[in-house]
């Protein structure tokens, strides 16, 4: 996330990425870093969707990398992690698979690292499913899926042969949570009730909470 390394891409890779996305309407991204001593790029007349976004018409300036098969497995696993229940919709209903695809396809260093973990993990999951049942993960029955998930859901308790799956699951679970709760339709279930206007003075902390926490003397 260091701003001095805007993309963690080599200059050549960055230019290649630029060329590849130019047709999709992308303009100059962050390739002129501090410490840059090569000749700097010319001004671009095109509005950059990254540096100067149009909030009314956001541009998603990179191609999605994950395959339909990968997305299918992501959907199945994401819904196991965050299913539809009384506390809100399923992960797939609020675009978590699309979010993970976008996340893993972004050209930044952190996202590329995550992409390796996710892709490798999905591959591991399929191999493990095949080894156990000669089927892909998304083709398994629910009990069979859960058996594998239980083996990898806790990194501290996972057996040595499941460590790769466990590392993937931990990161994947975080991405699911991030994608899920950044969708406004989940907020009420979570307990976020903001992003609405209030007239008059800010009302502050409800009295019941003040009493529960013993904060009367500092109100």
């Amino acid at each position, binding site marked *: *996330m260091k*701003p001095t390394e*805007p*993309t963690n891409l080599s200059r050549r890779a960055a230019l290649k990425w630029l060329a590849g996305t130019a047709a999709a309407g992308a303009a100059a991204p*962050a390739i*002129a*870093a*501090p*410490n*840059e*001593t090569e000749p*700097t790029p*010319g*001004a*671009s007349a095109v509005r950059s969707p*990254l*540096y*100067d976004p149009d*909030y009314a018409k*956001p*541009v*998603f300036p990179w191609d999605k990398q994950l395959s339909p098969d990968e997305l299918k497995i992501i959907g199945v696993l994401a819904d196991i*992690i*965050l*299913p539809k*229940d009384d*506390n809100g919709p399923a992960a797939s209903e*609020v675009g978590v698979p699309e979010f993970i695809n976008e996340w893993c396809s*972004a050209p*930044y260093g952190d996202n590329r690292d995550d992409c390796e973990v996710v892709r490798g993990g999905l591959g591991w999951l399929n191999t493990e499913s095949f080894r156990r049942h000669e089927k892909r993960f998304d083709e398994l029955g629910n009990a069979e899926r859960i058996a594998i998930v239980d083996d990898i*859901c806790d990194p*501290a308790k996972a057996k040595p042969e499941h460590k790769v799956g466990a590392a993937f699951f*931990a990161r994947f*679970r*975080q991405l699911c*949570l991030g*994608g899920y*709760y*950044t969708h*406004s339709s989940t*907020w009420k*279930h*979570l307990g*976020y*009730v*903001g*992003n*609405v*206007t*209030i007239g008059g003075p*800010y*009302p502050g*902390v*409800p009295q*019941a*909470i003040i009493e*529960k*926490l013993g904060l009367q003397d*500092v*109100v």
Partner: protein
Amino acid sequence: MPILTERKTQPQYDAIVVGSGAGGGMAALILALNGMKVLMIEAGRNYDPTTETPMFNTPEMAPLRGDRTPDRFFGYYDATVNGGWTVPGEPYTNKPGTEGDFWWWRARMLGGRTNHWGRISLRFGPRDFKCASTDGLGVDWPMTYDDMHPWYDRVEKLIGVYGENDGIENAPNSSPGVLLPPPKPRVGELLAKKAGKKVGVPIVAAHRAVLSQALDGPRLAKELFPNNSKAQQIMATDMSLRAPCFWATNCIRGCSIRANFQSTTVLIPPALTTGNLDVITDAMVREVMVGKDGKATGVHYIDKPTRSDRVAKARVVIIAGGTCETARILMNSQGKDKGGLGNQSGQLGKNLMDSVGANLSAHIPAMEDLPPYNEDGAGGLHTYSPWWLVREHGKLGFPRGYHIEMGGGRSMPGVGSFGILDKTSPGTYGSKLKEEARRYYGASFGFSGRGEMVPNKDCYCELDPKVVDQWGIPVLRFHWKWADYEIKQAEHMQNTFAELLEQMGGKPKPQSGKDAIKKPGEIIHEVGAARMGDKATNSITNQYCQTWEVKNLFLMDGAVLPSNPDKNPTLTILALAWRSCEWMMEEMKQGNI
């Protein structure tokens, strides 16, 4: 609002103002209200907060759910366009041997960085103006707090600042009736306040440039602009039109209802209403032009859309491009010294300072699973701690203080909001995971220190001899090394925050000062590259921001600050600009300029 269509300039102005942020916006407003013909030149594009502010947009409407990226470091909705710590085509470099690469935040847009800042508005105190007399380090300011007090009052009335008078040493009170009432604290802030009482850290209402209630435009305009009926009329209307905060959305997105302060909503619109201000955007100033008589005649700039060179002329030139950009313009201008215009003292580019920054946060079990209530509030902090150990420096081992900013609780969820579940809820998935997310969401709280750095000889900027930007203008090269003072201060911050968090029930893990201290430039409070002083041999300008070398050249941004007290600089930049403009107009009347 500033919708600018013409790209023509008049042959001659009374004043040119370079930059449209806090200093430039204030200068343009005050001069235009007093009948001067002003040209404002902004390097970035035109920007209209009334139509371009995504106040209520939700994360699912944004790439990566609005998460921060190296391109948009404060998230997708940050009101910084065409900017950040990197700007395509506008590089800067670090000198070999520097210990920490300097990060230079720029916003290439009308209003500059005032569009996205934290709105924390703290007055410098009496000791801050006499720092060298107090502890022998750095230099004193060429004026006292008493000289500045009325100008702080004026600025606070004009822009609207919420807060309270707490009578704390070196954290001055405003005059009665100046401050707006602060919003009530959030639950985490109350827990912090309770912890502060036990630990001995005062936690009081923050001072922020946000309207907690509507302004009484007619009354304030009369007080602010006596004997100027046109100014009274324009400002009475404009100030009354600003809406009070409706306690939603993060201030960093900007504010289309004009409740918080940004140059583009508070300063530039009434300045345009006077009819005395022309604004050209996408115009990158290369240098100040100086005539044979040694006076500034105007500026040479690049018209960016056409990539052509232009000149604009005026009786006085005010540079307010942002600390480092202002220094760079002077370095690229021809002066009596080879190091640039106004540099006979040799101080140009030196004394560069940023705030010392360090953070620490922890999970607070008492905040788990509380009944939901709306914690958005004023889009920034409601409480803070002014520096409370003013008289303890003999024991502390570092000479200057810091204030504490704080936050936590149930703000709008972000992609990274659930990291804590890795620790609290390993192995959990399914409906149970949703329950855990609800339990732990908003149950963390953190503190950030913002401390004063002492200027030192290792922190400076200069022109890079080899590199130019896309306009062919030589770029800045930085050199930086924190002194032990700053490292020790950061360590003290860590220990204080840990004490507070423990008292709140958390289990914090404080770092060493060396590991905790933020990058130079990361706090975005860089000041001091063209400091003011009491004589021409030790400074670039006098106390009215007038360069010693060129009588009709003024610098009205953070560049002139001789020290960088822990208090965020924007309020002081605004007050200095207003004060300096009034003095400058009087000098012009007297025929001295």
